[in-house]
């Protein structure tokens, strides 16, 4: 553990980068959506409220924000907010399914400096991808990438959530990214949002986790991970690149579409809500003085992991993964590489895991009603 990380655990003047979900509206209904998005929320921040947040972030010298949703490009003020952010010296990366990137928008995006684009993709072919993200979404993503390439955007990112069904496709994802001159990003599936419902059957198995770790060590030099696989560092001598710690409330946080501030995008739940940007003192007050973040910045209880020699590289894994599978926060991660989490899960009664608080999923289509007699 480097001295730096010890200091980072105590918190920073401002987040290094934060995630800002601009809207709960989405044109898709991915089965594992961490924000359970689909429907717009009437309480979503107005353009002026959003700009006020950006003013604050500038004053705090936040360098870079990650914009997401839902599908952020659905917002009518999407470009206005992105351009405003950049004008305030705040770099933007936005995460999108690509449905709204046609030729004209690709050109417009290419003219913007300090803007990164991250296209979501969860399969190296339509069959694998569309099973999770919906019919036609693979083609949509590729189309967006083609437009970006034609417009000379430069290097964008392709972001993959690693699942049981795409673990074997990592080489193909890399080849796809290389073919566009794009950067590949692979991240961990968390049981958050709609992910709670599908996690059991979708999260990588223990042998698959080892496969991911080995692949990252062998091929991952130019692959980003958002430090989301730090729990796998228990497997070896060499740590994967990254801070190797849970950043929630310490170096990162989430601003949700209605202005609520959470420790991270994977814990949109009351227990992890720090406050609201609409409260007196705004975001700055929440970041610097909220009770939740103060708690997270103090040494955490190690609990059951205290006797494990892997605690230093693993750090007890992911708070969100433990919370939404019904495991104690001071115990093993459900994907603990030594199997301690699996054992602990066996003790969690069916239905006992917390349900996500927010659900903006679209209602299921009505079942057809037949009129008259058949």
């Amino acid at each position, binding site marked *: *553990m480097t*001295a730096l990380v010890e200091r980072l655990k105590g918190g920073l003047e401002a987040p290094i980068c934060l*995630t800002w979900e601009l809207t709960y509206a989405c044109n898709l209904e991915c089965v594992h959506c961490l924000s359970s998005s689909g429907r717009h929320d009437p309480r979503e921040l107005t353009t002026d409220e959003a700009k006020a947040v950006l003013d604050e972030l500038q004053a705090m010298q936040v360098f870079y924000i990650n914009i997401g949703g839902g599908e952020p490009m659905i917002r009518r003020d999407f470009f206005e907010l992105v351009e405003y952010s950049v004008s305030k010296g705040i770099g933007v990366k936005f995460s999108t399914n690509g449905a709204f990137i046609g030729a004209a928008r690709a050109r417009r995006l290419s003219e913007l400096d300090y803007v990164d684009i991250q296209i979501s993709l969860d399969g190296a072919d339509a069959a694998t991808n569309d099973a999770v993200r919906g019919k036609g979404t693979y083609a949509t993503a590729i189309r967006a990438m083609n437009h970006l390439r034609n417009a000379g955007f430069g290097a964008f990112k392709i972001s993959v959530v690693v699942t049981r069904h795409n673990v074997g496709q990592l080489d193909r994802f890399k080849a796809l990214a290389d073919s566009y001159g794009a950067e590949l990003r692979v991240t961990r599936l968390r049981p958050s949002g709609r992910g709670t419902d599908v996690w059991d059957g979708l999260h990588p198995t223990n*042998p698959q986790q080892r496969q991911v770790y080995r692949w990252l060590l062998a091929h991952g030099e130019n692959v980003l991970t958002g430090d989301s696989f730090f729990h796998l560092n*228990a497997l*070896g001598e060499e740590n994967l690149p990254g*801070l190797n710690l849970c950043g929630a409330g310490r170096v990162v946080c989430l601003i949700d579409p209605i202005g609520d501030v959470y420790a991270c995008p994977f814990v949109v739940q009351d227990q992890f809500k720090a406050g609201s940007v609409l409260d007196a003192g705004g975001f700055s007050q929440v970041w610097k003085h909220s009770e939740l973040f103060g708690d997270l910045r103090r040494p955490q209880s190690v609990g059951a992991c205290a006797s494990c*020699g892997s605690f230093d590289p693993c750090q007890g894994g992911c708070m969100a993964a433990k919370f939404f599978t019904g495991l104690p926060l001071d115990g093993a991660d459900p994907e603990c590489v030594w199997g301690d989490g699996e054992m602990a899960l066996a003790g969690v009664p069916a239905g006992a895991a917390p349900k996500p608080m927010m659900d903006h999923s679209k209602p299921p289509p009505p079942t057809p009603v037949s009129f008259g007699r058949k």
Partner: protein
Amino acid sequence: MSVLIRRPTGDTLHEMEQDTTLADTTEVDEHDDQIVDELLIEEISIDGMCGVY
């Protein structure tokens, strides 16, 4: 399922706990020689922190 990697014992954790206390000093005092050896700069990827899209 064969275990390919041996899990380290808890002793390592104890040693690490002792190492980190020294690193918390930021004042220039008699621990100066440790500070001289410590890397004063550390680079990290902007993508290198967990809890971000």
